[in-house]
């Protein structure tokens, strides 16, 4: 390919990715050449700034038509833009948390690495959100995975951190192998890795043997990707890894990485498996196999919420809660109503704010005492009333109490599950029942904070960056809870119901 051809592509579409990439390179070099004395925190601020610039660049691209580079190996459609926005916002918030992260032992030497590995992980998620080719999707996925393996183990003097990283690598690699095995069959039966071309080939298929193999590949890919979602059956790594990883990394895994997982899942599943006709020749495979996904969603919700009841470690508790949230999102995915994209997007938006807000406080409370037992939240209201109330906002939102963004998110998913025909009554009921169960552990934290005498003495000092995260998250959680239409208007005016997803 000569230069002229190379320049003929609209590389401007990749502006946000380029910004992150350049920032990564810059940080790497700076970290290498800056004298040891310079506080590496400055790198964190640079990373944060680069994410903000990337958001701005993405904002500039919002009005663009669907753009594609090199046979969809990069593709910027409204789906990509919408979810990339979430990924960037989530990462920006996590970075702010990371800047303030001061564990008792060992992150200081590797602070610089921390920030740019973070950015590469983000780059991976962004690529995953805007690609129409299996190979690019795979590379993006792995870029994210490998970055997060390292991030999880970055406190290398801490045994828990090592162990968490090891567990993450082993489970992650197995999941990769399973996904790839499924993908290889997909490639074999379509002869292409381009999602659109694959869908085109698949619509004409009617050999039952091919359909059967495609069905098998469906499960392989779904289960493989459920590792990233931390949903059943590939969910069990999550609590261990979340507990052991440094807190900002946990936040990253439970928010950004999970969103990326859903993004790739939707991208692959919706574009490929909705094109495959089942035996009767009319129902697409994705709908034919809805019961399976629904079942997994139900089990995910049940497992996540039930086991969470037993947890004493706050990070583990949030791991299970995040498993449960993956289950709620899968309900929306199962229902496949025409508002699926909207409701998933909104739920994730709410989830970004409420979960990261909660993690900000968790980080604040746990690093102070160096332990993650829930008991350290006892009497938080006495120690720091405003902090406790803010935490209460996040928890109420996670629990789905009205007036918060979490409620609207759940409501959307719920209505979506009932709007389609046949309605998913059972799934919807399980969703309600399990969210009721979730009240118990969420309110357990509330009880600790409000109804217990204080456990720790001393004021909690809230650093500047964390304060910013808290304010943003709390404001957004309430704002989108009271005026959700803002978000939906934004969706409608900019993304036009994601009509260009397939086109």
């Amino acid at each position, binding site marked *: 390919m000569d230069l002229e051809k190379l320049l003929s592509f609209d590389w401007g579409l990749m502006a946000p990715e380029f910004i992150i990439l350049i920032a990564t390179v810059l940080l790497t070099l700076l970290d290498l050449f800056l004298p040891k004395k310079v506080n590496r925190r400055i790198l964190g601020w640079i990373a944060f700034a680069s994410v903000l610039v990337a958001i701005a660049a993405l904002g500039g691209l919002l009005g663009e038509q669907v753009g594609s580079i090199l046979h969809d190996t990069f593709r910027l459609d409204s789906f990509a833009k919408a979810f990339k926005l979430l990924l960037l916002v989530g990462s920006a918030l996590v970075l702010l948390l990371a800047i303030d992260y001061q564990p008792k032992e060992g992150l200081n030497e590797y602070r610089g690495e921390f920030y740019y590995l973070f950015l590469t992980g983000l780059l*991976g998620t962004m690529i995953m959100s805007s690609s129409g080719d299996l190979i*690019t999707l795979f590379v993006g996925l792995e870029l994210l995975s490998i970055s997060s393996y390292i991030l999880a183990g*970055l406190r290398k003097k801490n045994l828990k951190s090592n162990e968490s990283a090891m567990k993450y690598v082993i489970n992650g690699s197995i999941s990769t192998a399973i996904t790839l095995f499924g993908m290889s069959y997909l490639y074999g039966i379509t002869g292409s890795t381009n999602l659109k071309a694959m869908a085109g080939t698949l619509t004409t298929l009617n050999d039952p043997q091919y359909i059967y193999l495609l069905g098998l590949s469906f499960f392989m890919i779904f289960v493989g990707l459920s590792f990233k979602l931390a949903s059943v059956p590939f969910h069990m790594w999550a609590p261990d890894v979340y507990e052991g990883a440094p807190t900002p990394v946990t936040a990253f895994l439970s928010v950004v990485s999970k969103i990326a997982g859903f993004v790739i899942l939707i991208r692959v599943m919706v574009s490929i498996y909705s094109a495959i006709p089942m035996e009767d020749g009319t129902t697409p495979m994705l709908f034919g196999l809805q019961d399976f996904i629904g079942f997994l969603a139900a089990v995910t919700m049940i497992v996540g919420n039930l086991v969470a009841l037993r947890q004493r470690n706050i990070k583990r508790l949030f791991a299970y809660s995040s498993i449960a949230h993956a289950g709620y999102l899968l309900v929306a995915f199962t229902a496949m109503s025409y508002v699926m994209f909207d409701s998933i997007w909104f739920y994730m938006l709410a989830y970004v704010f409420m979960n990261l807000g909660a993690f900000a406080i968790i980080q604040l409370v746990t690093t102070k005492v160096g332990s993650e037992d829930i008991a350290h939240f006892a009497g938080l209201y006495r120690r720091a009333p405003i902090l406790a109330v803010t935490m209460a906002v996040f928890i109420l939102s996670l629990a789905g109490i009205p007036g918060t963004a979490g409620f609207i998110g759940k409501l959307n998913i719920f209505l979506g599950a009932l709007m389609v025909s046949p309605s998913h009554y059972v799934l919807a009921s399980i969703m309600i029942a399990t969210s009721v169960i979730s009240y118990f552990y969420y309110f357990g934290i509330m009880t600790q904070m409000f109804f217990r005498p204080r456990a720790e003495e001393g004021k909690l000092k809230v650093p500047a960056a964390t304060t910013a995260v808290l304010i943003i998250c709390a404001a957004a959680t309430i704002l989108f809870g009271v005026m959700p239409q803002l978000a939906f208007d934004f969706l409608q005016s900019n993304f036009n119901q994601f009509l260009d997803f397939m086109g």
Partner: protein
Amino acid sequence: MTFSGEFLAFILLALVAISGGVLLLNLTKVVHMVVALVFTFISIAGIYILLSAEFLAVVQVLIYSGAISIIMLFGIMLTKHNDEEEATAKGGKWRKAFLLLGVLAFGAVFYAGIYNLDFGSTPVALHENNAEQIGISLFSDYVIPFELMSVLLLVAFVGAIVLSKKDEEKEGEKE
């Protein structure tokens, strides 16, 4: 079916590959296991040649039989060498049994789909200038993932250094 040379080669290579795998499962010395797997990797390279993927065959030998096996051996040496695989701890039996069932079921389900699979397509000339074809494709259509790959390798590189480097215990001076 005639016993063409190709078929014979396939049978041989497949046997070596599988027996390498089986040895992996049955040997007790860790180093032996790795060596057994090297045989598997090499015979897989042979399979690639049968499938007109000469470039990949070379890559396979270089990376798997060479680089990765060496890394593994280094890994073994740097940790507890001469380690022997012991009998699994309690509770492991049930898990193994379940797993075996699962693996067998998995194999059976897939085998049912592929045992008589035949696409009946005409093969294209992949072996002609195999490396060139790959190169052209890689640098035209797949530039983006290729470049991303470089980032990925950078990440792995940095990560490997950071994690395996032995820190001098002089943190007091650094701060």
